[in-house]
């Protein structure tokens, strides 16, 4: 299951709707400090079901909704959609006939959340089951966040075990 594209709207600094197409091979992401590169990582993890605001550098989960800037007011909703290409590998049976599978997560200022799979309302559990089935996002070694690579060497032996458990 490859990622085809990531659509970000109202999530952190992505006030305007943005689409990023990931292809095969290597995709580079560059830009000055604070321009939004790591926010893309947060958007990906959030859409895959991250439940801890702290892991997204926020105090509360509403911190991921665009808070405004000097020139614009805050938005009322954050939305991220990941679209996967069904390349036949590790696809849960109910989605086997779709050429694409999309997962959308929305958060409103009043705290309500919505999850969609293929544009249809779904529960958080359905999203987790989908990702669990594909192996995407459940392996901690697939995303190395900024500043965290060194921790693997300085961490306790017990913490290192979980990396290997993810691969087992």
């Amino acid at each position, binding site marked *: 299951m*490859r*990622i085809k594209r990531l659509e970000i709207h109202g999530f*952190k*600094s*992505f*006030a*305007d*709707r*943005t*689409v*990023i*197409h*990931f*292809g*095969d*091979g*290597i*995709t*580079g*992401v*560059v*830009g*000055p400090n*604070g*321009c*939004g*590169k*790591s*926010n*893309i*990582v947060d958007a*990906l993890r959030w859409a895959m079901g991250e439940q801890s605001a702290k892991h997204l550098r926020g105090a509360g989960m509403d911190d991921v909704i665009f808070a*405004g*800037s*000097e*020139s614009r007011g805050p938005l009322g909703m954050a939305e991220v959609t990941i679209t996967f290409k069904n390349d036949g*590998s590790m696809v849960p049976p109910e989605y086997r006939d779709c050429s694409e599978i999309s997962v959308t997560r929305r958060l409103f200022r009043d705290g309500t959340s919505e999850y969609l799979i293929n544009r249809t309302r779904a529960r958080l559990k359905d999203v987790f089951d989908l990702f669990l089935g*594909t*192996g*995407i996002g459940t*392996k901690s*070694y*697939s*995303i*190395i*966040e*900024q500043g965290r*690579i*060194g*921790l693997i*060497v*300085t961490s*306790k*032996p*017990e913490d*290192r*075990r979980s990396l*290997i458990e993810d*691969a*087992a």
Partner: protein
Amino acid sequence: SRERYVETFHLVNEKFQLVFPRLFKGGQASLVLTDPSNPLESGVELLAQPPGKKLQSVTLLSGGEKALTAVALIFGIFLIKPTPFCLLDEVDAPLDDANVGRYNEMVKDMAQISQFILITHNKRTMEIPDRIYGITMEEPGISRVVGVDLKDTEKPLRVAS
């Protein structure tokens, strides 16, 4: 299950022992179970010896050596059980030019297996991707994306919708 974890541990250890000297241009490293009689509860000790140096506690390694050792382990695990994509956010920041070069060469090999997404400030790393997205904030506080397809004579990639 216990057998599966132990088998995975040994496969990862083998691969790690190959990847480390490739990234360090020599030297050796390995993983050790702190309690081999109880693998599922045991911690995982890390031994790492850069080329020409004496084996000492990993805590004494330099900032760049620690980062590269961690990268060797991550890549070792990845090669045993690849994930559909691998996203690395500025892992090359503490590396010198020679180490960045070897890191980049390995990423190019592994990108034949899975999608790799590299966030970087490093000029050398910026030479290896197939496409690059530049993130800008022309309007302060608002992120925008511009994409360039490096394989296709630098044609722009559609990004905004």
